[in-house]
């Protein structure tokens, strides 16, 4: 491990923070609140054209021919493009390049991109789309993942093994069969998790400009600038040195803007073709087709435990409905198994997970990528184990707590771990001991726990370069500018970087400016995914700032003719720790440093240490630090209507040191909201023709302010030895256990086990009737519903 990576959880000058740990405002808050922040769709360039996309009306079809001549002849149309203009395939995971910017020979879901037009305005572009003639030859469409698993004619993709399997992973740790045999209790069941989508309020948007000098600039609502840069170069067959990718202010992503998308390639190609700037803003309907949301999964779990509550073995079999393209699916298939091995310790674990292609909008990474679904199944099963052995559900989780500084059954290193404290917090806050199992019929409490990664040591393309880089530039006015490739997608990562640099240099936060996510200006960062930004970019920021600080301190010490240990940078000043009368403004200290060292500037980096189990796939899910979460949900079940209400959610999240507790609480609350939303209301699905069931914000039922439960967020700070000042992730972990905690609360309320999401009134009523029906009559009762 390089020394550059680890700085320890405390600043070297003592453990008192000036900026860190305080509820500072976000550095871009004022611009956002006044409407001055510039998002991709706010960019207007002289002569800008507007582009629209023609999409497939078939779920699965060959394209015999496309004729764009009439569209191109329409007055106001500047260019039309098809798959032939960009035949190179891409995929965010380099091993599975199965996407085209526009379909080349076949379409794979209703909404797949077929052609694009640039015109003087959107209306003209839309009119032109109507004039494009596409001759399709429809193929059998797969809408059921089981059928896709069993049948291989026709193939959705021309896979090596000539099946519709996108990825299969089978991993086996310890003696699973022996463990299950040795168990006093074994619970085995099927679970089902449905699809849901991110639905950021900002639809995807991209603007491209092509200069006479050959420079192609793309502004895009992406959460991974660096991968878009690489993919553009490859697909456009144009040198990366001549491409600049910029992420303007971004209006929400949640994983839904992690892939390179068709519109980015299309505006770039159209700008190159027409010589005019081109913008494409997707409609809300198109955002639903683009999807990349939560994978529907069918999960079979078998858990064995001893009478004392200790888990002896877990055996899982998972079928993942991937939709029409690979996207991050290789990783999803691993994550579905790899991320279950905490916060509990168990000696044996096996998972077999298979992702299949279907002719539906492609699934991808949604907040809690790949691990929310297995977590639901397992935590519900664990609750059942506790019930069978007569143990309190919180107690069984304590009993199996893996502790800190340990290794998981699949060989992952766990450092800090505050899960036990998370359990304590939610137990006390919910008054668990006096209320659980004792509330009136129809009301109940449920608990669940989870863990998540703070980034992973698996960069999507193999390389040994840093995962995060930072550059600092010092102005003679006393302003420090931070250049980071990190993507602020609303979570506040630019603010976090500013806090860290301000802390290290003793500056006021407003004297730190952040320039981010611009491939021309900023060092490479791998982007906002896998909850990696605070941990990795944060460490790089500390690295860079500490180098600069050393120079400033040395210059001041030399000028004062004192030892550097006496100089402290704090509160906008350099002060002499042994002479209260001596101090200068930081601006002057920077001048001294520039006189001594010439132009100031520093770089910082972060790369993970070597991590992961010694087996194929052992690095996937290996993280330098894991976050931990416990939820207690209070549910109300209306037994007349079957309607479930989450009345209150207590969520305790171990994020290491909370660099800004207000932002951490915001992440926890947003995660809980999103988890409860997909458990009760949201469903992303297609009808029997493969057509999206309701691609609008009316049909896709996102909770309003009146639907969202009261959420109480607790921050647990198990200071991590390798995080930036001890920080870990907070943006995705707190979603996971909200869903099983709700399911377990429903069981406490009315005694039914819901194993199939979402928890709609129909399912609740059916389960209630089955429970009340005498043995042997369950199926009849079910049919009547």
């Amino acid at each position, binding site marked *: 491990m390089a020394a550059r990576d680890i700085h320890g959880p405390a600043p070297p000058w003592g453990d008192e923070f000036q900026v860190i740990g305080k509820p500072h405002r976000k550095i871009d808050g004022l611009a956002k609140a006044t409407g001055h922040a510039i998002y991709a769709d706010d960019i207007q360039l002289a002569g800008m054209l507007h582009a629209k996309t023609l999409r497939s009306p078939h779920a699965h079809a060959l394209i015999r021919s496309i004729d764009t001549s009439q569209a191109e002849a329409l007055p106001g149309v500047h260019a039309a493009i098809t798959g032939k203009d960009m035949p190179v395939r891409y995929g965010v995971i380099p091993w599975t390049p199965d996407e085209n910017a526009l379909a080349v020979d076949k379409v794979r879901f209703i909404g797949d991109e077929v052609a694009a037009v640039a015109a003087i305005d959107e209306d003209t572009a839309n009119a032109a789309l109507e004039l494009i003639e596409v001759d399709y030859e429809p193929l059998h469409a797969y809408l059921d993942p089981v059928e896709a698993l069993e049948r291989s004619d026709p193939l959705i993709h021309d896979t090596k093994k000539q099946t519709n399997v996108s990825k299969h992973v089978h991993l086996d740790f310890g003696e699973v069969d022996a463990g299950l045999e040795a168990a006093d209790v074994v619970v085995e069941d099927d679970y089902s998790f449905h699809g849901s989508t991110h639905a*950021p*309020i900002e639809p995807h948007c991209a603007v491209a400009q092509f200069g006479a000098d050959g420079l192609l600039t793309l502004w895009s609502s992406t959460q991974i600038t660096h991968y878009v840069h690489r993919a553009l170069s490859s697909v456009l067959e144009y040198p990366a040195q001549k491409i600049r990718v910029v992420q303007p202010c971004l209006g*929400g992503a949640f994983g839904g803007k992690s892939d390179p998308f068709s519109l980015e390639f299309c505006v770039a190609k159209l700008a190159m073709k027409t010589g005019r700037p081109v913008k494409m803003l997707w409609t*809300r309907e198109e955002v639903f087709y683009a999807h990349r949301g939560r994978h529907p999964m069918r999960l079979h779990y078998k858990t064995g435990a001893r009478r004392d509550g200790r888990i002896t073995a877990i055996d899982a079999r998972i079928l993942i409905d991937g939709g029409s393209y690979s996207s991050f699916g290789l990783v999803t298939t691993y994550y579905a198994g790899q991320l279950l091995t905490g916060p509990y310790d168990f000696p044996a674990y096996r998972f077999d997970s298979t992702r299949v292609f279907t002719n539906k909008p492609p699934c991808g990474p949604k907040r809690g990528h790949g691990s929310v679904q297995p977590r639901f199944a397992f935590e519900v099963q664990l609750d059942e184990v506790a019930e069978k052995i007569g143990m309190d559900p919180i107690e069984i989780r304590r009993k199996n707590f893996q502790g800190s500084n340990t290794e998981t059954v699949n060989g992952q290193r766990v450092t800090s771990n505050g899960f036990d404290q998370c359990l304590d917090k939610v137990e006390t806050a919910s008054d668990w001991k006096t209320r659980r199992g004792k509330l009136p019929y129809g009301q109940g409490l449920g608990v669940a726990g989870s863990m998540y990664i703070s980034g992973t040591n698996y960069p999507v393309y193999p390389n040994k370069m840093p995962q995060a880089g930072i550059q600092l530039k010092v102005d003679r006015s006393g302003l420090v500018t931070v250049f980071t490739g990190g993507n602020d997608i609303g979570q506040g990562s630019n603010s976090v970087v500013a806090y860290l640099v301000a802390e290290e240099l003793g500056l006021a936060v407003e004297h730190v400016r952040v320039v981010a996510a611009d491939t021309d200006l900023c060092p490479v960062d791998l982007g906002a995914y896998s909850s990696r930004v605070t941990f990795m970019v944060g460490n790089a920021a500390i690295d860079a700032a500490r180098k600069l600080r050393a120079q400033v301190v040395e210059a001041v010490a030399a000028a004062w003719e004192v030892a550097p240990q006496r100089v402290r940078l704090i509160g906008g000043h350099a002060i002499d720790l042994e002479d209260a009368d001596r101090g200068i403004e930081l601006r002057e200290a920077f001048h001294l440093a520039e006189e001594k060292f010439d132009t100031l500037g520093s770089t910082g980096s972060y790369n993970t240490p070597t991590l992961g189990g010694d087996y194929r796939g052992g690095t996937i899910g290996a993280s330098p630090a894991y976050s931990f979460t416990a939820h207690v949900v209070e549910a109300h079940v209306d037994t007349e209507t079957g309607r479930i209400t989450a009345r209150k959610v207590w969520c305790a999240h171990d994020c290491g040191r909370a660099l800004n507790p207000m932002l951490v609480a915001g992440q926890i609350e*947003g995660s809980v909201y999103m988890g409860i939303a997909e458990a009760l209301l949201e469903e992303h699905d297609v009808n029997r023709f493969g057509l999206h069931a309701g691609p609008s914000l*009316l049909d896709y039922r996102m909770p309003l*302010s009146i639907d969202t439960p009261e959420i109480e967020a607790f921050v647990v700070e198990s200071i991590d030895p390798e995080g930036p000042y001890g920080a870990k992730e907070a943006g995705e972990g707190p979603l996971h256990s909200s869903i099983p905690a709700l399911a377990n609360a429903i069981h406490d309320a009315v005694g039914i086990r819901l194993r199939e999401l979402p928890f709609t009134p129909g399912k609740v009523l059916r389960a209630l009737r089955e429970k009340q029906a005498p043995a042997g009559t369950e199926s009849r009762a079910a049919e009547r519903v």
Partner: protein
Amino acid sequence: MSEHEFEVNGVRRTVSADPLRRLLDVLREDLALTGTKEGCGEGECGACTVMIDGEAVNSCLVPVCQVQGARVTTVEGAGLESVQEAFLEEGGAQCGICTPGLIVMTRAWLDTCEREGRVPDEAEARRALAGNLCRCTGYGKVIASALAAAAEGGER
């Protein structure tokens, strides 16, 4: 094309546009007031909320011909400072795309409360802001922001 004259943030504007052109587009494209955001274009998300003569509306559903002679207030307008301040202090904005709409809607709500002599409380705030979708915050800090603005007297 026809001429439309109305007031935007206290300034009299004349716009030549198709009468059915959305107010949202007139504001964003013709008047370069891009603070008003488009989230869905079908009146579901509230990101494009502006005030017309003090009433909060979704500007994506309003044709420009309907604002003839009216007073339009957007997030760039005056009188929103105490609400904006509250959203900053309480962490009510994360990605910020719904924030302009929420701020305008909060202003309209506080004005209504004042006009009708109602005391703003949490239940009222949740109802008042139910037409504005936020995907980041889980609404807790949004409601806290609205209530903080109310506690400040909701002064303009």
